[in-house]
């Protein structure tokens, strides 16, 4: 199909979409005056009955914790699928160097880059853990903090180069960390069932408001999500970086590439 036909088919679809969108927009409630009783109720009650100050965490890890468990499973499934697609073509073993364009000069890494990356990787990782741990108190939580902490791995790659990076970080560790996080969340949902409560019912002591320990079971769920996100993002980064390493003579079947071209 040529570009002309694509646009010709798109035009009526966009016209229909525009009409439908206009209908919906005119029927929407006025901007800035929400009618949602759900959110208003959470804002009014959660600080009292759960002793937490972050309402978004209260929704994610308590009120809709089963939803978040499903989301967590989706995240782990997507990461697993990505790993299955990427792994295997270049083998599992490590090589010394990353792939490089032939003829491009190798300038080395400046001492300032190495120093800053080592310092910042530590700081960023600790900050990510801080954001995870304070998830029920201040803005943040497992998802955001986990992503921040995982971004420190990229700084290690930037500062140390491919080979050291592969020496320090192993996919088995990340996979175990990811699985442990997912398992901890699933257990937090299931264990209350064994004692006759509802799934994910908040049965632990609630702690005190504005304290690091506040929200009871939410603390465990939040930490589990943080651990799982660190593991997932670590696995993803590792598998994508593996694609940049120099191929060795036997570990890649690129012959079907020429076939398809």
């Amino acid at each position: 199909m040529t570009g002309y036909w694509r646009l010709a088919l798109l035009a009526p679809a966009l016209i229909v979409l525009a009409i439908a969108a206009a209908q919906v927009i005119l029927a929407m409630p006025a901007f800035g005056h929400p009618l949602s009783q759900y959110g208003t109720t959470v804002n009014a009650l959660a600080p009292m009955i759960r002793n937490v100050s972050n309402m978004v965490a209260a929704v994610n890890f308590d009120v809709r914790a089963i939803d978040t468990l499903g989301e967590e499973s989706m995240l782990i499934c997507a990461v697993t699928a990505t790993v299955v697609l990427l792994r295997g073509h270049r083998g599992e073993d490590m090589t010394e160097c990353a792939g490089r364009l032939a003829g491009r000069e190798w300038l080395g890494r400046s001492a300032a880059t190495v120093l800053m990356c080592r310092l910042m990787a530590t700081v960023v990782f600790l900050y990510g853990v801080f954001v995870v741990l304070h998830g029920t108190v201040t803005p943040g939580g497992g998802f955001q903090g986990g992503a921040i902490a995982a971004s420190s791995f990229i700084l290690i790659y930037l500062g140390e180069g491919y080979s050291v990076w592969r020496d320090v970080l192993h996919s088995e560790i990340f996979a175990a960390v990811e699985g442990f996080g997912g398992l901890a969340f699933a257990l937090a949902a299931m264990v209350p069932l064994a004692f006759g409560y509802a799934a994910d019912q908040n049965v632990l002591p609630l702690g005190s408001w504005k304290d690091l320990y506040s929200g009871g079971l939410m603390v465990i769920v939040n930490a589990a999500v943080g651990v799982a996100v660190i593991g997932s993002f670590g696995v993803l980064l590792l598998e994508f970086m593996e694609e940049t390493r120099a191929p060795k003579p036997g570990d890649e079947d690129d012959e079907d590439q020429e076939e398809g071209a």
Partner: protein
Amino acid sequence: MNVLAWCVAAWLLGVGIYGIVTSRHYVHMIGCMTVCQSGTYVLLLGIGFRWGAGPPIFYDTPPGTSAVDPVMQALVLTDIVVGAAMTALLLAIALQVHKRRGTLDPQHLRPLRPRE
């Protein structure tokens, strides 16, 4: 002003779809899909917004202060996390397609056939 947020959300969805249809490269197409998705962020945050309200974090402000809808913010968080994972999955698929077919232009890709 009342309908601006909804119009922005619809516009983002529209330009994203236009980008997907006219795309000549899979990575560009994945970027366009992310643009479509950001329309949902605008829509959800717009639904939860309330004039003069603060964040739904009662740390500096006492509980009971007017705050925006936390459910919508939690949904946007879900949206972003799943979106990031899906983007990674699609990029992995794009890598494999490029390895096997040598191109990422949808125009030049033919249906998958068993290997001969």
